[in-house]
């Protein structure tokens, strides 16, 4: 579904991703962990099509197509979803309106008729229940005045609404209380299907107790230096990143 080969990305001449490789198949859940500033959000942004960054080398294939041939909105309509680490506020635009617009853009792209008001409301109610969101949230402006946790839950709600093929959740668990964490994990698990995939970026193995990953990757200084199963997350939590760095350094001769 998503294949990244030798991806090298820079901003203002500073290289951030350095020859990164990743392969995500349908039905899989990948976790990406790594210290602050290692390039996790950058990777997510580049996949989603943020044009702030320069792609110096490498390729990304999404659903069999060169992802760089698709503008950001096309990627989204083709089922790519990014749960933002820092969701932005859009004053005066209700979540309902925002989602209705997004869904109908996607439907248009897929050659489907737009949802009528009633259909949309029905879907929204269903998804709100699924991710356990209070009804009043949907009538509020997008993220405006939301608490940190509410913003993250709202990302999950949007994910539920858009039913992505590939969801990338950038630290969606950060700043959540235990109950909210379960809500988020629950949402992800309920949306999990054989033909979709999820990449969760997180600092905490705790989340991975709820969302069981098939693979855990360590992103360090712009590349993935170690991959493993879910036990790798436990090990990282116990021992930190130093040992992985050393291991990689030994094999890589820094």
């Amino acid at each position, binding site marked *: 579904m998503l294949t990244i080969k030798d991806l090298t990305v820079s901003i203002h001449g500073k290289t951030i991703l350095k020859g990164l490789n990743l392969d995500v198949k349908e039905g899989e859940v990948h976790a990406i962990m790594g210290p602050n500033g290692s390039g996790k959000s950058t990777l997510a942004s580049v996949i*989603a*099509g*943020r044009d*702030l960054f320069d792609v110096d080398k490498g390729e990304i294939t999404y659903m069999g197509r060169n992802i760089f041939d698709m*503008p*950001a*909105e096309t990627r*989204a*309509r083709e089922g790519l*979803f*990014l749960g*933002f680490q820092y*969701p*932005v*506020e*859009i*004053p*005066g*635009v*209700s979540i*309902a*309106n*925002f*989602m*209705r*617009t*997004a869904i*109908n*853009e*996607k439907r*248009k*792209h897929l050659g489907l008729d*737009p949802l*009528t*008001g009633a259909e*949309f409301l029905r879907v929204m109610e269903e998804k709100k229940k699924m991710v356990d969101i209070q009804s009043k949230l949907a009538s509020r*402006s997008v993220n405006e005045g939301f608490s940190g946790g509410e913003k993250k839950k709202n990302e999950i709600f*949007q994910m539920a609404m*858009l039913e992505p093929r590939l969801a990338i959740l950038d630290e969606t668990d950060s700043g959540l209380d235990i109950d909210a964490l379960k809500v988020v994990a629950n949402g992800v698990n309920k949306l999990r299907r054989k033909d979709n995939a999820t990449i969760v970026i997180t600092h905490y193995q705790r989340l991975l107790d709820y969302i069981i990953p098939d693979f855990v990757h360590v992103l360090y200084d712009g590349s993935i230096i170690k991959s493993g199963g879910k036990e790798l997350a436990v090990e990282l939590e116990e021992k930190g990143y130093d040992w992985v760095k050393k291991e990689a350094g030994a094999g890589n001769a820094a």
Partner: protein
Amino acid sequence: MSDKNNQILEEIGGSDYKYGFYTDIEMDQAPPGLTEDTVRFISAKKNEPDFMLAFRLRAFRHWKTLKEPDWAHVEYPPINYQDLIYYSAPRKRPKYDSLDEVDPELLETFEKLGIPLDEQKMLAGVAVDAVMDSVSVGSTFKKTLAEHGIIFCSFSEALQKHPGLIKKHMGTVVPYTDNYFAALNSAVFSDGSFAYIPKGVKCPLELSTYFRINAAKTGQFERTLIVAEEGSYVSYMEGCTAPIRDENQLHAAIVEIIAHKDAEVKYSTVQNWWPGDKEGKGGVYNFVTKRGICEGDNAKISWTQVETGSAITWKYPSLILKGNNSTGEFYSVAVTNNRQQADTGTKMIHLGKNTKSTIISKGISGGRSNNSYRGLVKTGRKAENARNFSQCDSLLLGDQCGAHTFPYIDVGNRSSIVEHEATTSKISEDQLFYCLQRGIDMEGAIGLIVNGYAKEVLSKLPMEFAVEAQKLLSVNLEGSVG
């Protein structure tokens, strides 16, 4: 609401001015040029009472002594007033009781504009008095209005049927000596609307009028007069779109509102004259004088305007708060794109005690446009405890456009409180990317963000007008970033 918004976003696709088309109705027009004879021709053509011709001539003679003002923050080539045509009317002289009698081509035009001048609108409870060029061509719900004693008709008709009311009120709020364009309008005004709400009557319908420029080179000089007697209420809406035109078109309207004791008038307008092409060629010059007076105690007048069109807009809907405890409100969204220039704002003149005014202005500029807010808040010597709150926000969509704020405050009374807040913001890359990532393209994203930004003002508009306004904001900001 979301329903409509979506529709808006879907319609953004094309890049040409959506409402740019031209209806070919045979014209009956005055020869170009402006002399006393032109004024007499117009008055005779409309079979006006003598006092009207006398008024026009006084205004014309005064106008000849004036020079065009140049203080606004706008630039345009000199207008040759002798090149303009000052009167034109559809030849098939309309006097309709039902829409069936209306020229089908005209109805088609309204259809294209998305103006539902039909059963739907009636069901929606809106009486429509549509002004095409200079003559009013359709009135609905007149009977309902008549039952309440409400007069709502074209200005010409009012001159025939209610000359006394016109004579009594016309020019009392905006005298022809007020300014250059007011004098010009007073001399050559073609038609417009008149609304009269008798004492104690709450108008059960939203009154609306659609203006449109349609004849090449025809200056459009509309005149609106709204009189709300003691304890009455009316909500009045006015809107327009204009066809693509290669030459500049002058529009110099006058709107006068009079609210007596305990009366309330809500005046809403969505203005979408042809703004010219991307290089600023063509487009309407909109030089308008709008003013209301809260004549009696506890009167209230509010202006709500959405300005999206015109090559040049020069417009300051103002209020004189004369009655004690009277209230004035001004809510405005002004959008400029490409080479558009707008110099708009309001004047709140507090004369009575405990008078209150609120000004909320949202300027949105894209392309290489210039958007100025110019506002005056003045409190008179006797205006004890007068209060004003002004908020002027500017949103910039690129870095080649300009936003300017010129607040003038003139306090003549120590007990008055005048507050002014201003902000300038840019649409953020993060917001745009957030929308793109949800599958909403750039134009759609801008439409959404801008509509959100203007929501505080849009929410003051009558519901169905709000929907039209949202459309216009989106359509008019095509290609505004970058």
